[in-house]
């Protein structure tokens, strides 16, 4: 069984889990969003590595090249990058709003204020 061909996916999973760790272990909401973005960028790498073909060229069609990488994951990830920025902007706007309402962007301060109500 040729497990060496899977190292890409494993490194990507390692990177994903680092982003996931930032999301669940840090208290500041902006840092959580950054962790979410790290996770997201790792998922992009996972998709692009699935579309790679051994010995293939970038999918710009020209004569003299026989093998191209798969363009479909590239298209999906192009869409995902732009959507990711839009959702990040929305999340950051929420953080700014929470900071104004609670006076803090730390998860624990927000919980404490909610409990004392």
């Amino acid at each position: 069984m040729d497990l060496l061909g899977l190292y890409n996916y494993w490194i990507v999973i390692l990177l994903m889990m680092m982003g996931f760790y930032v999301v669940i272990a840090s208290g500041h909401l902006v840092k959580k969003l950054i962790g979410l973005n790290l996770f997201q960028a790792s998922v992009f790498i996972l998709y692009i590595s699935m579309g790679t073909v051994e010995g293939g060229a970038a999918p710009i069609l020209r004569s003299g090249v026989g093998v191209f990488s798969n363009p479909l994951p590239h298209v999906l990830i192009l869409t995902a990058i732009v959507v990711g920025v839009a959702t990040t902007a929305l999340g950051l706007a929420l953080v700014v709003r929470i900071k104004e309402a609670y006076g803090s962007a730390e998860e624990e301060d927000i919980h404490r204020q909610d409990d004392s109500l």
Partner: protein
Amino acid sequence: MIEVVTVILFGMLAVTAIAAIRLHDLFAVVMMFSIYSLLAAAVFVAMDAVDVAFTEAAVGVGISTVLMLATIGLVGRHEKRPAHRPGLPLAVVTLTGMVLVYGTLDMPRFGDPLAPIHQHVAPHYLQDSPVEIGIPNAVTGVLASYRGYDTLGELTVIFTAGIGVLALLGIRRRKRGES
């Protein structure tokens, strides 16, 4: 050769992510995220995804970083040290990672030209898009024509997010101006 470049880039990505975990100054964390996105763009070039690479370099590195810097300018740049121990998050992350690794075991190997993903619509795109669409860049052809509705949906999402940001930040300012 290209494998060596990819492995080095992956190593740098991992170091950047670890630095982002360990730092508590949010300005430095945002810079680490920016470097991470730029390295990811380099990985995309090494994996033949040039369109994705320059979109990531422009949007992921540029716009995301500016948005995050603007936010930490408003909410403050220092993170408090977390009071709880990192044991539980670490356990959750390790478990999730192991499940995901188990899930990759029956994936096609990296670069395998016979993988199912390369057998479905991709050959059609690669062979017929110069005739049907008339431009050499297959990614643009698929994005703007074969999957044009996807792009329309993407615009809907961006529009909705823009309305959301305006609703959260814009209207409140006007009220303060009136009072």
